[in-house]
Structures are given as C-alpha cells and as structure tokens.
C-alpha cells in the first residue's frame, strides 16, 4: 500500500487542518473581531519587518547630508510626523519602534510558552510535592504587581545582560509565566482523569508519551488565546517600562513608551506631534492584538463558540440543475 507524497502530507497535516477549521468557520462578530485584529497586527508586523525600507531615516538619525534636522519641527513634507527635541524624525521612530515592540513581545511570548507550558504539564500530570511547590511559587508571583516585578527584573538584569531587548523580554516573561502555568496545569488536572488517558496507560504508554500524545493536544487550545491577549498586555508593560526609563535604552532602539515620556513636557507648549503619534501607535497595536485575542477566543473556545445552523435552501435552481443533468 504505497501512498504518494501528497497523500502522506495530507495525512500528516490532518490534525493541523482540523485545529484551524474553527477559524475558517468563524462567522459574524467573531469573524469581524478576528479579521480586524489580524489586519491591524499585520500592519505593524509589516512595518517591523520592512522598517529599513519603509522608514525615511534611522531611529536615532538627527541629520541628513551634513544638515542637522530642525528641532521640534512641525509635520511637513520632509518629516511627515514632525521632529522631536533631539531632532529625530517621529515617523522613523514609530516604524523602528514597531520592530522593537514586536521583537520584545515575540521573545517574551516564546520564553513564557517554553517555560510555562511544560511546567504546567508536568506539575499537573504528576502532582505531588513538585506541583505543590510550583503552584506556591507561581501564586507568590501573582501577588506582585506585574509592572513592579518587571522593573525589579529589568533592574537586576540591566547590569549583566547587554541587549536591552533581551532584558525587557525576560522582565516581561517573568510576569506572564504564572498565567500559562496556571491555565495549563488546571486543564491537565481535568484531562488527566479522562478515560483516554487511562486507556493510554493500559496500552503501556510511558508517562512522557501520554503527556506528549494524549494530554498536550487537549490542553493547548487555550494557549493561543492567552498568548495573544498577553501580547497586548506585554506591549503595555514594555511601553510602561520605557516610560519609566527601565526599558530598551534609547541608544539601542526606538521605543514608543520612551518617546511618550520625552514628549510630556512638549505637550504644555502646544507641541502635539511628539506625543500623539507614538501614543496612537501604542493604542493601535494593543487594540489590534486584543481584537485578535478576543476573536480567537470566540472561535476556539467551545463554550463561547456559537455554531450557526443555517437552513439549507431547497430552492428551484438545484432541481433545475438535476433536471439538466438528467437530460445530459
């Protein structure tokens, strides 16, 4: 029974196609949320990827062709969003800022998932003292305000790690690991008692095989939703860090929160463009990610998902088509 490569590929991906099916089937509100969120997020992703092409200047560039830019210049043809007090171009800082934001958030999500999900799986499935200990530790982390925790971590790591992006990512990760851990662990505890897990034990599967093949796929559905919603939150935390001066250092990259903090004093003197545009960028990215997360939640979460049953329309055309077929 030889199968062609195409058939084999189709078989391998049957699970992925099934997991994505609800997204294709999403209707109404869920669909609009999902598409709006995807659209906005995609714009920022494209900005980040093509920053070197799209951005008119570098993020810390204050002169061009030996001529220094004007300080606090009004938006004009040369500088669409104006310039800052340091003569840098606001538009360029926003485009490069998108890159910083997405780098940090992407890294933070990856770290959070890589640490939180396996910890949750192991603690939930095996239970015992390890579970007790990790739950206690994670609960203790919940007790700290996330921003405070992030500041402390950023402060501690600032000396030893050179990359500002990495420091910010780790600081944000620490505050989100407990969320993944909690959700995954609690879900594992309920899945662990399912008959199919006992059936797998009866088949002779080792605990790690059971975790990998039987438990994992039944508990990860919620993770994309939390991850996307956390991404939105992470943007806020990163900009807050930047605003307070603990985030990505100005020499290492453009960061919207830092820009907003620099623009605070400008606002009083009627200079609106230095604060408004980074602010709008923050709001838009957070909104986009939140819409995406909520849309995913509506489509993936079976409790919220509403399956619309549409009546089949037995209208005349199909009969005609049948008749034509018969004639032919």
């Amino acid at each position: 029974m030889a199968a062609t490569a195409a058939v084999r590929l189709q078989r391998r991906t049957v699970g992925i196609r099934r997991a994505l099916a609800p997204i294709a089937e999403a209707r109404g509100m869920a669909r609009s949320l999902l598409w709006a969120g995807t659209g906005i997020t995609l714009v920022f992703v494209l900005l980040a990827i093509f920053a070197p092409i799209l951005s008119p200047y570098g993020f810390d560039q204050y002169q061009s062709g030996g001529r220094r830019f004007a300080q606090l210049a009004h938006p004009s043809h040369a500088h669409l969003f104006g310039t800052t007090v340091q003569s840098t171009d606001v538009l360029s800082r926003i485009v490069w800022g998108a890159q910083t934001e997405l780098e940090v958030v992407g890294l933070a999500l990856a770290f959070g998932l890589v640490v939180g999900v396996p910890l949750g799986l192991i603690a939930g499935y095996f239970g015992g003292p390890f579970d007790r200990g990790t739950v206690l530790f994670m609960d203790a982390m919940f007790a700290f305000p996330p921003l405070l925790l992030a500041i402390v971590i950023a402060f501690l790591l600032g000396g030893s790690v050179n990359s500002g992006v990495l420091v910010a990512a780790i600081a944000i990760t620490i505050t989100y690991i407990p969320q993944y851990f909690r959700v995954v662990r609690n879900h594992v505890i309920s899945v662990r008692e399912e008959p199919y897990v006992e059936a797998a034990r009866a088949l002779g599967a080792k605990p790690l095989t059971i975790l990998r093949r039987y438990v994992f796929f039944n508990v990860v559905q919620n993770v994309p939703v939390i991850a996307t919603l956390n991404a939105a939150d992470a943007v806020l935390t990163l900009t807050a860090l930047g605003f307070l001066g603990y985030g990505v250092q100005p020499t290492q990259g453009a960061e919207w929160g830092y820009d907003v903090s620099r623009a605070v004093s400008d606002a009083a003197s009627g200079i609106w463009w230095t604060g408004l545009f980074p602010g709008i960028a923050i709001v838009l990215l957070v909104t986009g990610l939140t819409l995406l997360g909520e849309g995913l939640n509506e489509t993936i979460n079976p409790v919220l998902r509403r399956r619309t049953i549409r009546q089949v329309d037995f209208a005349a055309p199909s009969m005609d088509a049948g008749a034509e077929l018969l004639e032919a």
Partner: protein
Amino acid sequence: MSAPDDVLVSVRGLKTYYSIRGSFLDRLVGRTGAAVRAVDDVSLELRKGEVLGLVGESGSGKTTLGRTLLGLVPATEGTVEFEGQDITHASEHDRRLLRRRMQIVFQDPHASLNPAMTVAQAVGHPLEIHGLARGREEVRARVADVLERVGLAPAEQFMDKFPSDLSGGQKQRAVIARAIILNPVLLVADEPVSMLDMSVRAKILELMLALKHDFDLTYLYITHDLATAKFFCDRIAIMYLGRIVEIGPSEAIYADPKHPYTQALLRAIPEPDPRRTIPRDLPRGEVPDASRPPLGCSFHPRCPKAFEVCGWESRDLKELLERRWAGLGEEGFEAEQAAVGPMEALDVAKTHVRLAAHGGAHGSDLRGLLDRARAADPAEPFWTGVQEMRDANGSLEIDWYDPVEPRLLPADSVEVECHLYDETALAEAAQRRQSRIPQ
C-alpha cells in the same frame, strides 16, 4: 503456588481499598480517613478461553476488580497471578510488557478515544509504544487489517477520521481494534455495550465473540446487565459490596440462583410485556456505604431470608425504627421518637447497645415500643438476630448475636457465599434458636 495449566489468571484474597479524605480537622491532626472497600477479599480463577461475567450493581466493585487485575489501580492486599506469575507488585517496566498480553475496553467509547488523534493514530499507537511495527506504512497496514477485522470496512474510509466523526458503535469498534492490535490473551471488557444503542449492542457482542474465537481470547466481562451476561458468559460471578457472593456456570446461575441477592437480581430483569406484572420482591433499601459495610454478611440488611447468624447490629435497629416511623401517623411517630431520642449511638456498628430513654420514658417503655414493632411485623428477620433485651435503669440494653463471617462454599454446581448453604452456620443458628426459647 503454581496454577494448573489452563488457568490464565488467578486472584487470591484480593483487596482494593480507596482511602477517603477525612474532614479538615482530621487532616490537621493527622488522622487518616476511612477506607472504601471497593474490592474486599475476592478470590477467583479465569481459565484460558472462557468468558467470565462479573455482575453487580453500581458500586459493587466490579470495575475496580477489573482495574486492579490489570494493575491500573494498586492492590491493597492479596495477589494476582497471570500465567502462573505473580504480577501484583510488578514494576512499571514489567507491567508495560504485560500490557501486550492483557488489554481493557472501557465503558464509554466517546471518552476512551483521544479526541485529538485520528482513528489510524489511535489504533496504531500501541504498536508504536511497544515498537512492534517499523515505519508509518507498516503501522498503517496493520491498522487497516485490524479495522477491517472489527468491521470498520473499508478501513481507508475510517483511518483519517477523528473520533467525533464516528458513531458510538463505530467508536467502540475502534476501541476494540486498539485493544486487540497487540494480540492480547486477556481482554477485560468493562461494560462495553452499556453506553450503546440497543440495536448496536448485539452486533458488538457478536463481534466480541467472533474475535474471541479468532484470537483465542479470554474475557473478563464486567456488566450490570444479567440479560446480556446470560447470552455472553460461560461463567458468572455475582458481586455485592466488593465481595463475590455467588460464582458458577451461567446456566446453573440462571436455572437455580442460590444467593438471595442473585435471586433478586434475576427477578429484576424487566419483562417485555408490560401487561404482565410479576411479583418483583426487590431488595429493600439501598446498597450500604462501602466504607462501613454491615457486620457479617453485607447483604443481610436487605435480605428477606436473613437469620440469626447473618450479623444483625445497631445500624439495623435504626433502619428498622425509621422504616416503622415512615408508616406511622404523625402522633405515633412523635411519641415514639421522643422516647427514643437521638439515635447517633446506633450509627456505629455494635452488637451491644445501651439505648437511653428520653422525655421521661423508662427502659420498659422502649421495650414496649420494640415489642409493638415486632408484633406489627413478626416476619421481620431482624428479630431473629436479637439475643437479649434488658431494662436497665432508664435505658434498654440490646444484645445481638455475634456475626458469623460468610464463606464462599460449594453448593451444587456453583459456589455461594451465604449462610443458608453453610452447614456450620445453620447449626450455629439452630443452637442459638434453641438457647433462646426458655426466655
């Protein structure tokens, strides 16, 4: 102990207790909670190629017995021998090897398939786990064979479907396929058809019989349904509250049930003709709490034929009074309840009880009350167990006979655990009856 050649599984004195968590206070002071005796001293043998039915109500421990046998639940005491080898305390590694030889089919086909695996993945996974097939194509070929064998044909049509795309009967076929793909010798079937439609049940049972023939399987068939057990099993074991009360060839059990519980179960099989009403005479009350089973024979509180030696005790008195009060008018109930007062003392199993009279009543009033109860229903077997009642200083002391533990003894072609078939118990009862007459 070496088992004879044709014995596949031999269970000796098997006990499986689940501990229940005590109250918060209990845990604080380190007291351990009580234990539910899910399986309480069971011995049985499973011969090669036979179908042994394990029949009982919910909570009788039949499922736990099946799981303990497979090592899915640790045994508290006793031994399980499989092919002459003690596997009660086998290591995880040894047990994984044993899994190839013994498999289980669960009750709920919807829940026993992983919703995230296709049929081909689920049925083929045992082969991967035990490294019995090389490469995806070989696994797929073996899966196709076994799917065709269990009636999921053409296999190609089912292999890439998810469990949620299949019907209940198809899922159970897939579960059976997953169990037999390893070529086991023992299959524990835990109510395999009870969640299926009536029309599908017979087909699945027929399939299981055909598979037994083809693969030389031995079944432990766990069910609460005596009607299908009759059709399916060579031998039947009736379980009640963790113990086997009767075991023997199916025909013998159906033709001449010995144990009062078996008789009641057989009477409870529904009649297809609704106009025919037959006296059901079902056991009274509910299945008792398995963490505090009745003294003596566990079935005695519900048994219409119980007598002196069956283990009468304080809790039976409480039930008797409650039954009586349920039938009395409000006035009668209030008067009697006032005299008896709180009955917490009766909740602990004892064969000697001092019942204090309340509300200005005397011991003699209590005695009068019990005498009236006895006069109202002289056939009640409870009274056979009362050895003595004494008035004592504002209270009534009641002594019951010491319980005699029932044993599984041969009776005709079956074995039954009931004092009615135990000569020594009968003699003891007769002696007790004799000694009480002078009073």
